[in-house]
């Protein structure tokens, strides 16, 4: 069964603005990962946050994890046109279970 569910399904913002995507899941996890998929391409790993971590940064990316609410958020600051892609959260419970992703469009 599907574990992670992203919200919103689609997001369109202006270049330079911040983009926030949310992910909710149902069961206990070892870690939660975020991946990016450009149109017609494979997935690329962005960041991993473990179940005992609350926040993690990588460049313009900031991920939070709230295990009590079973939710995570991905924040992309100062967005660029090249950030246009689909973003997936994946929960790791001995295997990765992906949500359906958020389609992010950055308008120049």
């Amino acid at each position: 069964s599907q574990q992670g569910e992203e919200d919103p399904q689609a997001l369109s913002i202006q270049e330079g603005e911040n983009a926030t995507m949310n992910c909710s899941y149902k069961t206990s996890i070892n870690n939660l990962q975020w991946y990016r998929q450009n149109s017609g391409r494979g997935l690329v790993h962005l960041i991993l946050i473990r179940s005992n971590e609350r926040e993690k940064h990588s460049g313009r990316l900031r991920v939070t994890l709230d295990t009590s609410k079973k939710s995570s958020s991905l924040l992309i600051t100062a967005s660029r046109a090249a950030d246009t892609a689909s973003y997936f959260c994946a929960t790791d419970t001995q295997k990765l279970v992906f949500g359906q992703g958020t389609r992010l469009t950055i308008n120049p």
Partner: protein
Amino acid sequence: DTAVSQTPKYLVTQMGNDKSIKCEQNLGHDTMYWYKQDSKKFLKIMFSYNNKELIINETVPNRFSPKSPDKAHLNLHINSLELGDSAVYFCASSSSGRETQYFGPGTRLLVL
């Protein structure tokens, strides 16, 4: 110096045919995976091999048969293709003890 490669990139075939997709990784990983991404972008794991041993076998029709000749290769054979098999199939790999997975570019399968 492609890390995870798949062939073919596109595959168009008739219903009832048998086809194979090949995957190779040069990252030295010992675990490989097959995923299916449907038209709604939902990505679901199908199989996983660790050191040539099948460790994950999701509820997949037995028309799908994976085969791992060695740690660097994982192939997917599909018998009696059906319209519903049309999707993008992704291969991925990872190293034991490391959770990050590296994905191939995908094989776009269209069954007519």
